[in-house]
């Protein structure tokens, strides 16, 4: 039996740190308002780097941390909703930037659940023996899609990239997984609508490049769907909550995580949180957190961790992994 296992992690966040106070100079909001409703204190914004740039920097960090030769990479998946272009894919741009000429590369669109979907997809290629390894990255430059006139969304999101290098293993790795979609609720979170238009249109269409979110609908989805997903994963894996070292939730909102903790009866201390520093970086929150935990030596071989994401699509996903 073949399994896929995380060999190493890495991340990159751009350098422009924007505090809540800085945002409140441009938007009618305040540090207290943002902090109390989301747990966010600051976010990192790109200083001109696009999604493929930060994804490639995260990729180089991953490769360095695991001493991986880019020529050995067989598959690259980049999960993003903020690609540089519709084509070429961000993954192809990353392939070129890191010199992974032997890899096949494609993007995956599952918003904040994208990293989980990416691992799940790569895992199938590895388990079936098609590829021996995969670089899976979540990367977003969401600042380019923020409407700074909409104070209910622009304060919540930031830029960043993170990922893992997966390789085949004889045991361990992913013990349970679940990915899911509910397209009926898709319009509650939309980003950069591309309208049908051509020169024979009578009325020219206006492009809307912004992210729009129905806060209540997403809150409802996240607080109802994620706890169920977490509990199903624990049940499927056969381990008990006490054995679980950490839960790495998608960092969308600290208050949502508190509710997930309450509903799953998993102590809040087991939920790793870094939203205060980075805000919501969509597909990148979980791999950034995972890499931070590795650097802090919070995780060791044999530890059980659970990652769970939810977001646009609407989509959700979770993985229970043995490190």
């Amino acid at each position, binding site marked *: 039996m073949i399994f896929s296992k995380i060999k190493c992690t890495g991340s990159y966040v751009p350098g422009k740190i924007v505090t809540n106070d800085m945002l409140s100079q441009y938007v009618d909001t305040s540090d207290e308002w943002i902090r*109390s*409703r989301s747990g966010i204190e600051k976010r990192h914004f790109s200083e001109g780097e696009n999604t493929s740039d930060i994804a490639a920097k995260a990729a180089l960090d991953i490769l360095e941390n695991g001493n991986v030769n880019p020529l050995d990479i067989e598959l690259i998946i980049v999960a993003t909703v903020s690609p540089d272009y519709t084509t070429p894919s961000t993954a192809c741009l990353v392939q070129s930037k890191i010199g992974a000429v032997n890899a096949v590369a494609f993007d995956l669109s599952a918003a904040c659940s994208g990293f989980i979907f990416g691992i799940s997809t790569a895992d199938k290629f590895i388990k079936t023996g098609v590829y021996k390894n995969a670089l899976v990255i979540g990367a977003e430059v969401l600042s380019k899609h923020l409407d700074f006139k909409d104070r209910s969304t622009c304060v919540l999101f930031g830029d960043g990239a993170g990922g893992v290098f997966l390789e085949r293993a004889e045991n361990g790795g992913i013990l349970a997984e679940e990915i899911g979609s509910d397209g009926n609720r898709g319009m509650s979170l939309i980003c950069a609508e591309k309208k049908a238009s051509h020169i024979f249109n009578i009325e020219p269409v206006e492009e809307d490049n912004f992210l729009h979110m129905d*806060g*209540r609908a997403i*809150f*409802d989805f996240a*607080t*109802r769907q994620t706890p169920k997903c977490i509990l199903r994963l624990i049940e499927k894996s056969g381990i008990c909550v006490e054995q679980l070292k950490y839960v790495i939730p998608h960092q969308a*909102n600290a*208050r949502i995580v508190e*509710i997930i903790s309450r509903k799953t009866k998993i102590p809040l201390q087991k939920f790793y949180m870094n939203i205060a520093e980075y805000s919501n970086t969509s597909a990148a929150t979980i791999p950034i957190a995972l890499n931070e935990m590795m650097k802090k030596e919070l995780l060791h071989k044999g530890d059980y961790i659970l990652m769970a994401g939810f977001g646009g699509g609407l989509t959700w996903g979770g993985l229970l992994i043995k490190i």
Partner: protein
Amino acid sequence: MEVLEKIKEIIAEQTGKDIAEITPETSVMEDLEADSLDLFQIINDIEDEFDVKIENTDEIKTVADVVKIVEENQQ
């Protein structure tokens, strides 16, 4: 009256306030200092408790408004 009592209980739990402080006239967001996320969670708990779907939250100001919406939805 049963609906009111259960709703008061749910609101008290989410806001951390004493149930005795909560009357039908109490404003959920002003008197109980609940923010929009507290209100979302209160509505979710109420939806689960009474098996109703509450679409429009803009009309909700007081506890009595919540009771009215639940009773209308139950019919």
